[in-house]
């Protein structure tokens, strides 16, 4: 097992943080952009960039509601994203197990 097997879309600190944060939501819930920004401590520009990557991979879905000053962007993991994070976690666990002396 090598680190190359870790999903490269998720395997960056910022995107991993985003994915784990969104995975803490209950099924059927979503999180506002500002809420996600608070929890991940990313700048708005950074967050947008990483969300775009995750959205292109089909791992997150964003939805914009309303317009003007009342506009609200909400973000949630997709089923595919949840599965990808589970796979990532399984591979990571195997890597850590194989690296441990016991």
């Amino acid at each position, binding site marked *: 097992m090598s*680190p190359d097997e*870790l999903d*490269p*879309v998720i*395997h*960056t*600190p*910022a*995107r*991993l*943080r985003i994915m*784990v*944060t969104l*995975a*803490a*939501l*209950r*099924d*059927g*819930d*979503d*999180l*506002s*952009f*500002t*809420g*996600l920004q*608070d*929890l*991940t401590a990313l700048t708005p520009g950074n967050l947008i*960039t990483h969300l775009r*990557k995750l959205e292109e991979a089909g791992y997150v879905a964003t939805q914009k509601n309303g317009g003007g000053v009342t506009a609200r962007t*909400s973000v*949630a993991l997709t089923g595919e994203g949840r599965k990808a994070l589970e796979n990532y*976690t399984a591979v*990571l666990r195997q*890597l*850590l197990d194989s*690296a441990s002396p016991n």
Partner: protein
Amino acid sequence: MNDGTGTDQGMTMNAADAAAIMAEADARARPVLRPDHRVTFLVWGLIWFLGDGLTWLAVRGQHPYHGPNPGGYAATVLLAVLVSLASVGQSRAETGVRGLSVLRRWSFSLSALAGIGGAFAIEGALVHAGASRPVVGVFEAVAPVLVIGLLYLARFPVEQDWAVAGLGLWLVIAAAVGAYAGPQNVWAVAALAVGPAFLLVAALEQRRQRA
């Protein structure tokens, strides 16, 4: 940022770093994004235990039975309503979370308020129809227990939470059995059967979160 090699803004990430980031992000997100019912169950348990227990102390030995002090009873019900609204307020505190879990909590709180309000209206109708004070007393002690019990049971298909469903079933049984204890002792049954049951579920929730 180098997307394919696990770097981000120049920072390389190995497996141990990734595990640490996951643990830190999860520890930060979970308390904010997942509703915490421990306090709600704890407060409900104390309200029920103390409210019904004090009511029992007030009505035991009444001959003839004339029921609890209306002021004290109203204060207990008001407190219960405030707790219910506080649990809805908790959903507002979950910054930015929207969706089914928030809707579910609103639905539960409003249904509880409607159910208990409806029970009070029926109690008025019973009085109006000439029901005796002891009969009305039994009804006012068990109706809220039955309403809340049924609401907890109804949550099971969605939440699949055995502890909450068990609490719901227990409340329904406590209401049905307690009604046979008579207008005075029904309050003791409610205090001893309902209050500790909520406290037990709060303890189970605490254990679950620590696991």
